[in-house]
């Protein structure tokens, strides 16, 4: 913590200390620091108490849990003396995203200092008056209290809203003990609870006091148990609430992150495309093309959880059809309506079917002049078929010109070589329909889930 003011460039240099085996913590001690390349900051987002441990962890590049365990161990070994150090750390280390720490803010907060001084004198007066009736008590008890209250007031004023919430939770039971979990309405149950707790504590304390004189071995234990039970009854609901609030806080954070993710996506792709569409408003085909690209991208992100540009992990039959659709739309600007029924893994035969289907689709996009091409793919238990259809100008199959052998050779040839069939139906002015079919080995199970 003492080294928090070092030259930031040094942290960055330290950031590259990955050894040849990928270990981070190689090399001399001073180079071992990796961290986040920044000065020491308390991490408000990932905190259990004040965020000191997570701040140190991020700064030194150590696991947060390790730091927390070390902190707790030190606290235990030092018999609690470490706790004030933690508090001082909390006061002196600025929170992430802030430049000043609480202590320095408090120092420059003259109004706050005045308030604290005022509070302290007022309290001192009250306690002094009280002390008159109870000699000797004031000196032992009241001074620390006065100082504490004044200090807390100063800290409170200079803590960020987040930390004020934390502090509020810490002092809450004092004010809320009588109210109970159902905030605001002191129901019967909470009255009973407080009464029961009071009774337990009083009986336990009385037992403890009396046990002191009798010195019986077992009885103080009973007193301790009663006092603990009383405290649990009194404060248990509050502890539970803290735990629940923590969980809720985490969930809210996750939701906020999701939201940020979504808005980033919408901004990155959708808004950009909308801007492009506005600029291309005079070119209807381009507008349609842009809109479809964006639609497909957004759909695969929304419904399949795939980020734009992210390739599909393992391409199945349905994924292959989707790729044909995308490639043809992107290259020829003709919309392709793809419907897939069922899905299965690709094998050699199906790869040939895919290649033939791609060829047929490209052919339709290049020659038919149709406004849209329909691509229908179906996986059945014993066969897989793809139908590529357009409503374009079509052709007379008997009079195919020599330069348009693409369909016959690459589509028909591909299919027949692998034992499939290719059927081309076309007539002038009535579009073209290419039906490709490939038998499947009976063992391969069909997989549902492919309509895209």
């Amino acid at each position: 913590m003492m080294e928090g003011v070092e030259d930031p460039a040094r942290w960055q240099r330290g950031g590259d200390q990955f050894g040849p085996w990928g270990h981070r913590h190689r090399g001399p001690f001073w180079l071992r620091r990796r961290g986040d390349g920044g000065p020491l900051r308390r991490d408000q987002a990932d905190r259990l108490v004040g965020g000191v441990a997570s701040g140190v962890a991020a700064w030194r590049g150590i696991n947060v849990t390790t730091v927390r365990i070390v902190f707790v161990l030190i606290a235990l070994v030092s018999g609690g003396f470490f706790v004030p150090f933690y508090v001082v750390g909390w006061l002196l280390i600025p929170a992430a995203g802030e430049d000043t720490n609480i202590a320095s803010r408090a120092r420059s907060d003259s109004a706050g200092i005045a308030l604290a001084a005022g509070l302290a004198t007022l309290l001192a007066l009250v306690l002094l008056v009280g002390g008159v009736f109870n000699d000797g008590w004031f000196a032992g008890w009241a001074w620390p209290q006065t100082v504490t209250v004044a200090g807390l007031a100063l800290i409170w004023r200079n803590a960020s809203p987040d930390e004020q919430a934390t502090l509020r939770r810490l002092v809450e039971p004092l004010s809320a003990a009588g109210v109970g979990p159902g905030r605001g309405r002191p129901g019967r149950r909470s009255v009973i609870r407080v009464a029961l707790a009071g009774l337990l504590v009083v009986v336990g304390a009385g037992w403890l006091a009396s046990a002191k004189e009798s010195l019986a071995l077992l009885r103080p234990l009973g007193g301790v148990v009663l006092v603990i039970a009383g405290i649990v009854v009194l404060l248990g609901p509050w502890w539970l609430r803290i735990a629940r609030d923590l969980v809720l806080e985490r969930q809210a954070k996750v939701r906020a992150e999701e939201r940020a993710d979504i808005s980033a996506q919408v901004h990155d792709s959708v808004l950009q495309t909308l801007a492009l569409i506005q600029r291309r408003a005079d070119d209807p085909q381009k507008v349609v093309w842009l809109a479809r690209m964006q639609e497909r991208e957004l759909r695969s992100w929304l419904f399949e959880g795939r980020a734009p540009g992210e390739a599909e992990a393992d391409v199945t039959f349905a994924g292959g059809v989707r790729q044909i659709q995308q490639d043809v739309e992107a290259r020829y600007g003709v919309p392709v309506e793809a419907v897939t029924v069922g899905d299965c893994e690709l094998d050699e035969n199906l790869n040939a079917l895919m290649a033939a289907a791609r060829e047929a689709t490209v052919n339709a996009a290049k020659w038919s002049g149709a406004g849209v091409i329909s691509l229908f793919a179906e996986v059945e238990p014993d066969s897989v078929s793809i139908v590529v259809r357009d409503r374009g100008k079509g052709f007379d199959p008997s009079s195919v010109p020599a330069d348009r052998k693409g369909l016959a050779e690459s589509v028909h040839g591909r299919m027949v070589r692998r034992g499939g069939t290719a059927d081309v139906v076309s007539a002038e002015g009535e579009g073209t329909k290419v039906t490709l079919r490939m038998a499947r080995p009976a063992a391969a199970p069909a997989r549902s889930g492919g309509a895209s």
Partner: protein
Amino acid sequence: MSGTPRVVLVDDHGLFRSGVRSELGRQVEVIGEADDVQPAIDLIASVQPDVVLLDVHLPGGGGQAVIQAIKPVCPSVRFLALSASDAPEDVIAVIRAGARGYVTKTISTAELADAIKRVAAGDAVFSHRLAGFVLDAFASGSSGSSGSDVKPSFDPELDQLTSREREVLRLIAQGYTYKEIARELYISVKTVESHVSSVLRKLQLSSRHQLTRWATERRLA
């Protein structure tokens, strides 16, 4: 059904409503618009249109909430679902609630007007994508979405598509119009319509495939 169908538009996008309204022009008579579930229910109950063009996604509970509220009150009102999402569970849910058809928002104006007239006449309208979903859901060989815990149906008729129905659905999925399907299969347009209506009935009533669950899982797949 005589003359132009009387239509109510229910969509939470004002831009889309005004677009559809101006495009449909004189082909149908748009007699009202609503932007949410409750206003839609009130409007439909009071004006009793022939067809409601219903967005699947509405802020106050989705399209099926409108259908469920209107069905008992005005059984003669027919619904054509319209969606930009194409997510199978949305589509299947709104069809099973009682919509007579489903089309995507990218549909051309002429096709939309045609679909509205068809629904007004009591026919069913399937988009090519919905046809694909139905084929997938009723796929032969696979029983149910994930197999094991499928309840036996009281009416096995409802759980299977006839081979003719499958052929019709395949052609719809390939973008064929009813007229083209009729020519391709050497049957009349009326027969095509009755096949599609029968598929719609199976889609709405079948229990074997637990379609809603299928659709939800389908999206996660």
